[in-house]
C-alpha cells in the first residue's frame, strides 16, 4: 500500500516542429488505499498520466512520489507497481495457475510459497475450478479475473488499471466492475483506474479525477463531482442524458434576486449564498444555467405548480421510449430542453409540454469559455 503524489507534472511531446502538451501541470494526491478513477474523453491525457505513474513515460517536468519516495528516475520495475491493461496479455501456453505464478517463479520465489500464494489469490478471485485450464479455454470474465490475479499476486504498492472493461460486453462489464470494487474493499491496495465511461467511474471510485485537454478539471467523490461540478465541462460530461445548459440573465428587482431562464423569471430570493453572486455580478449579466434532465418534472396540466417551482412550456420535438423511461426533447423558444420521465401520459411529438424544474437543483456557471461554477445554496 502506498500514497501517490503528482506535483506540477507535465508531459509534452515533440510532433515535427511543434510541441504538443499531453498533460499540463497536474497536481494530484492519491491517498493510501484509495481507488481513484481518472476519467475523461479519448485524448484527454488520462492514460499518459497513468503511464507516468508507472514509469512507462518519462515526465517532462514536476515530481512523482510513491510512498513519499521520489520516483522520477526510477525504472518501472523498481516502483513496485502492477498494471492491468484493456487487453489481458495472458501466456497462452500456460495454465491459469502457471500464469498466476509466473512472476514469482521469475523472481525465484520457493515453490511452496508460490503454491500457497496462487491458491490464496485463486480462492479470492474464485478461480480455483479453472486453475488447470489454458486461457483459450476460459470465458472473457475468467480471463479478465486471471489477469487481475496475476497483477495482484506480487502484492504491489499501487495497482494501475487502464480501461480494463472496455472490451467486455455490457453484462460482464457490470459484473467485473462489482468484482473490482469488492477486491479493492478486501485488499485496500491503492488503485488508479483509467476510463472514459462515466458510469464506471461513478460506480467504482472513492474519488474521481476528471481530465480534459490535458488539464485536471476537478477531483472529488462521485457525489461531489456529480452534485457540485466545478465547471460546465464536468457538469455535462457526467450524467446521461447530458445536463441541459441554457442561457440565463440575472436581475435584481426591489431586493429580490431572480434569474431569467429562457424568458421565464425565476425568483431565487430565499437562497442564502446568492448574495455573493449578485454582488459580484452586475444586473443583467448573463450566466449559463445547468438543469439535469432528471430534475425536470412533466406536468399533466391539472395540477398547479408545487412550492412555486418554475414552469416552462414548449413543443415536444422528440419522444424517445427507452424501456422503463421516456426521454423528451422539448423546444422552448430557441433552446432545446431534454428531460427524462417514467411516464409521459401519451404525449406525442408536436404536443405542448409543461415542464417544472426544481430551482434548488439549478447549476450556475460563468458565461465564458471556462464556465466555472458559481456556488450557491
Amino acid at each position, binding site marked *: 500500500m502506498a500514497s501517490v503524489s503528482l506535483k506540477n507534472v507535465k508531459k509534452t511531446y515533440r510532433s515535427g516542429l511543434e510541441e504538443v502538451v499531453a498533460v499540463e501541470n497536474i497536481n494530484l494526491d492519491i491517498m493510501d488505499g484509495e481507488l481513484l478513477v481518472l476519467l475523461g474523453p479519448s485524448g484527454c491525457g488520462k492514460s499518459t498520466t497513468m503511464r507516468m505513474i508507472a514509469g512507462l513515460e518519462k515526465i517532462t517536468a514536476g515530481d512523482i512520489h510513491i510512498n513519499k519516495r521520489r520516483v522520477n528516475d526510477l525504472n518501472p520495475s523498481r516502483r513496485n507497481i502492477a498494471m492491468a491493461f484493456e487487453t489481458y496479455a495472458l501466456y497462452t501456453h500456460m495454465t491459469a495457475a502457471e500464469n498466476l505464478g509466473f512472476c514469482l517463479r521469475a523472481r525465484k520465489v520457493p515453490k511452496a510459497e508460490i503454491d500457497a500464494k496462487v491458491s490464496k489469490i485463486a480462492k479470492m478471485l474464485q478461480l480455483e475450478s479453472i486453475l488447470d485450464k489454458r486461457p483459450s479455454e476460459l470465458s472473457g470474465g475468467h480471463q479478465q479475473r486471471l489477469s487481475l490475479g496475476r497483477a495482484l499476486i506480487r502484492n504491489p504498492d499501487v495497482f494501475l488499471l487502464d480501461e480494463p472493461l472496455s472490451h467486455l460486453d455490457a453484462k460482464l462489464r457490470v459484473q467485473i466492475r462489482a468484482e473490482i470494487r469488492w477486491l479493492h474493499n478486501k485488499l485496500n491496495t491503492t488503485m488508479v483506474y483509467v476510463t472514459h465511461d462515466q458510469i464506471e467511474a461513478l460506480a467504482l471510485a472513492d474519488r474521481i479525477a476528471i481530465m480534459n485537454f490535458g488539464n485536471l478539471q476537478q477531483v472529488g467523490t462521485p457525489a461531489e463531482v*456529480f452534485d457540485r461540478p466545478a465547471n460546465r465541462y464536468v457538469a455535462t460530461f457526467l450524467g446521461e442524458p447530458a445536463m441541459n445548459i441554457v442561457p440565463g440573465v440575472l436581475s435584481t428587482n426591489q431586493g429580490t434576486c431572480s434569474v431569467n431562464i429562457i424568458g421565464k423569471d425565476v425568483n431565487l430570493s430565499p437562497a442564502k449564498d446568492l448574495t455573493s453572486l449578485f454582488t459580484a455580478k452586475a444586473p443583467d449579466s448573463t450566466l449559463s444555467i445547468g438543469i439535469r434532465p432528471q430534475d425536470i418534472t412533466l406536468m399533466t396540466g391539472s395540477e398547479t405548480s408545487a412550492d412555486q417551482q418554475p414552469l416552462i412550456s414548449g413543443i415536444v420535438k422528440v419522444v424517445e421510449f427507452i424501456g422503463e423511461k421516456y426521454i423528451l426533447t422539448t423546444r422552448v423558444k430557441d433552446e432545446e430542453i431534454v428531460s427524462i420521465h417514467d411516464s409521459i401520459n401519451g404525449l406525442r*411529438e408536436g404536443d405542448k409540454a409543461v415542464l417544472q424544474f426544481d430551482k434548488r437543483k439549478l447549476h450556475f456557471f460563468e458565461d465564458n469559455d471556462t464556465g466555472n461554477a458559481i456556488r450557491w445554496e
Partner: protein
Amino acid sequence: MASIELKNIVKDFGDVKALENLNLSIDEGEFIVILGPSGAGKTTTLKLIAGIEELTSGQLLIDGCDAASMKPADRDITMVFETYALYPHMTVWENMATPLRGRGSQMDPAAIDARVQKIARILRMEEYMTRLPSQLSGGQKQRVAMGRAMVREPKIFLLDEPLNHVDAKIREELRKELHLLRHTIKSTVVYVTHDYIEALSLGQRIAIINKGRIEQIGTPWDVYFRPANLFVASHIGQPEVNRFVGRSRLDGSSVHIDFPDLGHEIVLPSGQFPNDNMDGQKIVAGLRPQHVRLSETQDERYQLPAEIVIRENLRTELDLVLRTGKVKLTALESPEKDLPEGQQMFLHLPEKHLMFFSKNTESRIDYQPGN
C-alpha cells in the same frame, strides 16, 4: 420508398451458417431496426439487401420484384457503415454533393446546392459546409457520411451501426437527429445495431436476431413488455431482467408457482394464463430490476428477506444486487435512498410486472395479470 421482403433466406459462409431461414417483411417507408449481439447475422442481412452478398437460398423481393434479377446499382439503395469514409480533400459540401454530381447526373448546380443545403439543415451542418473532414469532430464526420447517403433520397436506406464509434454524448445527440429524420425522409430505412436503447428509441418495429434467426418482430413496446422468449427479455433492458426458476401446479382455479431457490410461492388465478395448462410446468419467471420493490421492514407484502451484497450509486439511480435464498437479484432504487451494503431488506415482487417463460422452450407463456 420500397417494400422489402426476405423469404426463407439462408446464407452460408463455407460451413458457417450466417442466416437460417430468415423471414422478414418490411413495409414501404418503414423505419425498422435489426437488433442483436455481434455475430447474429445483422450486417449479413443488410449486405444481402444491398446486393453486396449473394444469398445461398431463399428469395429477396424489393417492391415485389425478385432482387436476384437486379444489379446492386439498380436497387436504388444507399448504405452507411460504422466507419465513415469521406474524401479528405473535399469540403463538407463537396463530400455531400458527390452522389449528385457523378457521371450522367442530370441535376443542375442550383438544384444540387438546394438539396445539399436541405440535408445539411436537417443534420445541423450548415455552418461547416466549407470545412475539410480533418477539421471536423467524429460526430460531425458521421453526420457528413449520413448526409452524403441522404442527398439522393434512395428508395432504401441501410445503416450499419452508424453510432458505434462516436462517444456517448454525440451518440445521444445523433440518435435524436436520426429520430427527426424519420419524419423528413421518405426512404425505407433498415437500421442495424447491438444497442437496445437505440433500437427502442428509433424503430417503428424491431427485429431481434440471434444466431441467424429472428427471435421476435414487434413494436418497441411489444419487445420490451411482451418479449417472445427469454433471449429477447434478457437482451433488452439494463441491468438485465431477473430470472427465477420455478414449478407450477394447478389447485382448483389457482395456479401455485413454487420457486425453491427463492423460498417463495406465488398463487395466481388460472384464468390469467388463458392459453397454457399450468399443471406441472417448469417455469422461468422474469422481473425487471426496476420492478423489484424493497422495504426495510417486513410486512404482508414485503415478505422475502434479502441482503444487499453490492451497491452502486450511479447518482441517477442506485443499482443493488441482493441475495435472497440461493438467488441473487438486481434492483434499482432512487439514489436518494443510499442503502449500504450488508443491509437487510424485504422484497416484494409485484405480480403485475412478472413475465413467465417455459423452462424447456424458453418461450413466453401468455399471462394476463389483473389490475
